[in-house]
């Protein structure tokens, strides 16, 4: 009898609990009641400044200085093997003049995302991997945009944000499982955040008042075919996503699959164009190691 009860319980855990949480999550996504992370204080200011091409470096340094964790993180990255100059970088001002405003803005954006969104208790390791993947996608998106003569910064931002819906949904899953008293295993919880992460990411980006083109690209980055609406940024992010899986060797994409990607044709990239992008893998991995 006890065995039977245990078996029934296990079945509920494997089937019913995830379904209950999944249904509740789907309702929250559908009725837009999902709780989205709010960017407040320094993080919000830094995010806005990092997106402003004309920002004064001194003002950005001042804003970052207000958040000691962020400042420390930036200095750590500035001193990493990828960026470090001959002597150690000890001040934010020095970091900006050494790394350049552009690099600092990119790093600041990455830190804001990582510290404010990619943090869910119990899933630190998994989300670090997701964040590293996002960073790699951002760098590849930048390279694709450069090759196509499209906006490089916009592509970086869209790549960085493309999976931001995943940690948001994961936090919701954790909250819901506690609310509904349905304990889930890690694989179960992670499996639930796949569907709807694009839409959630796009909503978050809209809430954070980032450009609508970024939200559009994030929402549609899994589209395989041409869309009538919007520009090609969704395909840039989609291909960068595949390149990032390939470069970080997570086993999801191999070179033949990459060359077969319908996005390659959609973006009119010839075999040698793709070879040049694949050749960026080492550079991208270094950039990911430095920040992630």
């Amino acid at each position, binding site marked *: 009898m006890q065995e039977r009860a245990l078996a029934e319980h296990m079945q509920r855990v494997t089937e019913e609990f995830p379904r209950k949480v999944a249904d509740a999550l789907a309702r929250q996504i559908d009725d837009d009641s999902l709780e989205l992370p709010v960017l407040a204080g320094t993080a919000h200011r830094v995010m806005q400044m990092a997106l402003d091409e004309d920002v004064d470096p001194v003002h950005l340094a001042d804003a970052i200085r207000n958040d000691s964790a962020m400042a420390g993180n930036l200095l750590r990255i500035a001193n990493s093997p990828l960026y470090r100059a001959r002597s150690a970088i000890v001040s934010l001002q020095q970091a900006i003049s*050494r790394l350049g*405003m552009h690099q600092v803005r990119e790093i600041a954006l990455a830190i804001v995302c990582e510290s404010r969104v990619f943090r869910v208790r119990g899933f630190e390791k998994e989300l670090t991997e997701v964040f590293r993947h996002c960073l790699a996608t951002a760098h590849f998106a930048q390279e694709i*945009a450069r090759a196509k*003569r499209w906006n490089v910064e916009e592509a970086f931002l869209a790549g960085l944000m493309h999976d931001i819906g995943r940690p948001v949904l994961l936090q919701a899953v954790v909250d819901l499982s506690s609310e509904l008293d349905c304990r889930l295993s890690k694989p179960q919880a992670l499996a639930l955040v796949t569907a709807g992460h694009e839409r959630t990411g796009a909503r978050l980006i809209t809430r954070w008042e980032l450009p609508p083109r970024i939200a559009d690209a994030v929402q549609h980055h899994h589209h395989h075919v041409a869309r009538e609406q919007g520009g090609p940024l969704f395909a840039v992010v989609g291909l960068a996503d595949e390149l990032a899986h390939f470069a970080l060797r997570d086993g999801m994409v191999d070179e033949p699959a990459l060359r077969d990607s319908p996005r390659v044709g959609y973006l*009119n990239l010839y075999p040698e164009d793709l070879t040049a992008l694949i050749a960026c893998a080492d550079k991208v991995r270094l950039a990911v190691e430095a920040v992630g």
Partner: protein
Amino acid sequence: MIDEYDVIVLGAGPSGQKAAIQGAKAGRRVLVIDRDSQVGGACVHRGTIPSKTLRETAVALVGFKRRSGGVFEIPPSEELQVASLMTRLEEVVSGNEEYIGRQLARNGVTVWHGRATFLSPTEIDVLNVRGERWHARGSVIVIATGSQPRSPVDIVIDHEHILDSDSILSMTYLPRSLAVLGAGVIASEYASMFAALGVQVVMVDKADRPIGFVDPELSTRFVEAFGKLGGRFVGRVGVTGAQWDGVGSVVTLLSNGEVLRTDKALIALGRVANVDGLDLVAAGLALDARGLLAVDEHGRTRVPHIYAVGDVIGPPSLASSSAEQGRRAVCHALGLPVGMPAEFTPIGVYTVPEIAAVGLTEAQAREKFGSVLVGRARFDEVARGRISAIEDGLLKLVADPKGERLLGVHVIGEGASELVHIGQMAMMGGLGIDTFIETIFNFPTLAEAYRVAAFDVVKQREQIKKSAA
């Protein structure tokens, strides 16, 4: 297996389209091969059409201020996105693309999307983006592969801070300042366009004036108009370096010691022929010292059945002249009548204000005829010019020494690219200077400038007669 065609055209830009249509209209089997998935070439996707769409906005902003007598002004905001200034672009580009695609299809032209390589002077290998290959053989081959911006070896174009004409319109926001290196058509068009949008623009070049091939009087007026928009032209100066300082500016070092610090830089130092991967050697061809394909007056290369048209053969590299070159090349190849000589092909430069010309410049006419008579009409002498507040315009007629035959027309001012066609038609019809005096034009129109300039020629003609008597 090799597909056989009467005419194979490499490239679907303006020259390629017209070459293909001409071949098809003559009842020949025609194949067009283009490496882009959409037809239209750089003209539709990266050049003429996108830049002119942005220009319309710039001209509207300048015109609004002028026509309101300076009472109203729309200062472009710092938040203004470049894309929002080109909201109609997608519609305009897809409209052009659809039209070209329909036209090719209607005429039974086969279009292959892929990259062409000569296997021999008559055979072409085509590789598509999926790595698939086809072969085609053509009795006539027209190279119309266009051009791409030239990248100087000592300047890194990152397409983010230092841009070229292919990436300049990818900027999200209008920069506060822009250095334009170069003073040709593309440099001058973008420099004046961005100046009109409120960007602080410095244009730098080794030449002493911009757009060197137009009448000097017009380019001098252009520099003045550019100055009124807030732009600055620095001539007779070389660039010793340009790079992003990593913080907030592109630093451009000039040979006169001046250092420019600008938000962005546009490198517009000419264009190079798009011949990468064509394997010209297999076709029996080679580029000349200027990096272009040499052709005769019919567009024929040294291989008699291979023609080259458009940007790959060099200036004037305008969409209109390239299209005509394509048509004429195929007519010649197929033994069809070619029509009027190309000397009456007008040029149009879409600067702010526009510049247009047809026929001989004053200097060319003097060289050919010894002396010439030149009639001028400033737009402020014409009612429509004053009404439309385009007083800085000028129309210049170049006549033969007797002041009877029209040799050239040169116009600067809004509407110049349309206005020049009156002179073009007159020259093609062999009409004399007096025609403009005897003809009734609508009033008030800028066409009246022709009458004013013609009177100027006649006045000089009468004075010469009086002096001789």
